[in-house]
């Protein structure tokens, strides 16, 4: 919905509503300064920084290995992907070889992590729309994934399983069987989601045509991830700048042309199925061998990458996550800069929200799937 100029100029009958930082639907400590006329949003200003922990500065004062636990605390919902991104970036900088088995295992774990993040989003998003029940169901499915990942990594939320040159723990002999069981369970869930959520009239009314982003606007704000793909741009780091073992696997990039909240939901659902496909292929072709490179003893060894700068990007559950890593040859990075997807996606709210209702504002914010600690870092 477009606003005419007088709408924005006349301050007489508008008022400001502070949504957050303590509000049920701001997903953490986000504050939205909404300018409203009645129930219609005239302007929105996201205020961030409530959970700023200076991760980038911390990276400069710790060794490469000491920074490992920080990574998964940036995005606590797909922490494993962030953890592996840091490991892979350092490996690339220091030219550490990685065994085949570790490469494939990383893909399996990361994709499971992606599905668990998307599942949680489905539940939380529906709760934003006023349907509380799906949350319990998707959490149950997520629990199966988290339990599976726990048997390999030992953690359930903030994973720290990546090691320079492999992984901390090997997948046990029984892992493929358990993983396939989880896949069967998940795949039985998609038709159920389709029948109960996607085909629901109220859900469609609440999401279709709401919070539309054009391809142009997405490019302007640097939006990535499912939000970008829902606007019809088939951009996925796993395809565009393939990393790890991803080039070996056949999968498609789901896109939708509409660019609205509904399209974002559909893209995420389709992505979960694609992740299942990747995991299945990876499990079929899981090579034998060591999980950690001989001689590279993970965290204990003092690592001194040669001087240089690199940019390393991965596709997280929220979009393109990039690391700019500069080494001056010491044991600590000279500078680490993180390009987090939610930051750019959240900024695009300023384009998406004006003209919508308060209830839509909640739906739009929910559809972005922002994780505040990842924005604030």
């Amino acid at each position, binding site marked *: 919905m477009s606003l005419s100029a007088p709408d924005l100029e006349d301050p007489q009958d508008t008022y400001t509503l502070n949504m957050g930082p303590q509000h049920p*639907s701001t997903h953490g400590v986000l504050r939205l300064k909404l300018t409203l006329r009645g129930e219609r949003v005239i302007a929105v200003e996201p205020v961030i920084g409530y959970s700023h922990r200076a991760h980038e500065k911390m990276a400069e004062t710790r060794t490469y290995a000491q920074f490992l636990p920080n990574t998964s605390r940036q995005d606590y919902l797909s922490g494993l992907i962030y953890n592996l991104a840091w490991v892979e970036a350092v490996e690339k900088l220091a030219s550490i070889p990685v065994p085949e088995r570790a490469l494939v295992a990383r893909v399996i774990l990361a994709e499971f992590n992606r599905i668990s993040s998307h599942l949680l989003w489905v539940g939380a998003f529906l709760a934003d729309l*006023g*349907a509380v*029940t799906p949350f*319990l169901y998707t959490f149950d499915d997520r629990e199966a994934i988290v339990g599976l990942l726990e048997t390999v990594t030992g953690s359930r939320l903030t994973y720290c399983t990546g090691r320079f040159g492999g992984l901390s723990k090997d997948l046990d002999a029984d892992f493929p069987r358990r993983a396939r069981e989880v896949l069967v369970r998940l795949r039985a869930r998609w038709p159920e989601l389709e029948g109960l959520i996607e085909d629901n009239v109220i859900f469609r009314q609440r999401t279709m045509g709401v919070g539309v982003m054009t391809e142009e606007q997405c490019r302007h704000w640097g939006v990535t991830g499912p939000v970008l793909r829902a606007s019809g741009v088939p951009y996925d780091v796993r395809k565009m700048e393939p990393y790890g073992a991803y080039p070996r696997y056949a999968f498609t990039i789901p896109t939708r042309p509409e660019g609205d909240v509904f399209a974002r939901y559909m893209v995420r659902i389709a992505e979960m199925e694609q992740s299942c496909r990747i995991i299945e292929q990876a499990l079929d072709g899981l090579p034998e061998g060591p999980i950690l490179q001989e001689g590279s003893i993970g965290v204990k060894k003092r690592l001194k990458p040669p001087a240089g700068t690199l940019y390393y990007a991965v596709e997280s559950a929220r979009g393109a996550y990039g690391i700019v890593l500069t080494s001056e040859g010491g044991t600590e990075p000279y500078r680490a800069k993180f390009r987090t997807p939610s930051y750019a996606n959240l900024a695009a709210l300023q384009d998406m929200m004006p003209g919508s209702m*308060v*209830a839509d504002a909640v739906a739009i914010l929910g559809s972005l799937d922002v994780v505040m600690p990842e924005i604030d870092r």
Partner: protein
Amino acid sequence: MIDFVTTLAIGTAVIMGYLSVNVLFLVWLERKVSAYIQRRLGPMEVGPQGTLQTVADMLKLLGKQLLTPIAADKAVYWLAPVMVFIPTLCLASLIPLSGAEAFADQPYGLVVIIALSGLTVIAIFMAGWASNNKYAVLGGMRSVAQVIAYEVPVLLAALSVVLIAGTMNLRGIADAQAHGGGGLPFLLLQPVAAVLYFIGITAETNRAPFDIPEAESELVGGFHTEYSGMRFALFFFAEYTNMLVLGALGATLFLGGWHGPWLPGPVWLLLKAYALVAVMMWMRWTFPRLRFDQLMSFAWKLLIPVALVNLVVTALVLAVWR
């Protein structure tokens, strides 16, 4: 005179006592229904199957401090929970429990009920306005608009029943379903009106998917954001009592009231009323919430035209048939 006062006192005590127990029961039922839908157990710790959980919650609310925001309009803020509570209490006395038992048998009982149930909205708006909180004001405004919109289809649906029954007396309407009107519950004769009525009362009691005045994901707590302790409990009390009363009215209008084989009248009425309430709970835990403007256009563009057409068709059929 003494007789009248005694009857009044006993009647009030019985209704108050029953409604308090009813609220405790309904809150427990709501939790159990939601737990069943969500594959949980729900409350299990206090009492057998958690039945005393709501009693414990009530005690907790009694012990809580009654906070009044500094900027609130003190008198109105204090009055709102009382105001929301009184009409629901009056409503309960108007429902005929059986052929012989009704606390207040009015010739125009239906009109009185619909008029009284509209009063709650004033109290809700008072609460929203007096709290001096933007979320509460939004909730209050939504509530007014919503109740005005949804009273109309409820009234029109009830009118189509009145046309068939030929009376506005609730006892007469229930009796018409036993031997008059072909002896059928009006649910079968007026299915459209029954659906309209049910949707309407779901909206009137602020239940999901029409719970936008207190939409917790948008407005935090809506009109009762600033209320604490027993004041908050009174809003709760009113909501659940309203559910039961409007459920009982629905049972009287469409399901034959207290008429039914084997069991005594009041038991039948309550069974039917609670069945309707259970459906309302089922809906709450199944659907997402409508948006405010969609809610309004749903009422004005769909429900009211359908209700009008239904009323006219009913009148025409009756005119031809009789």
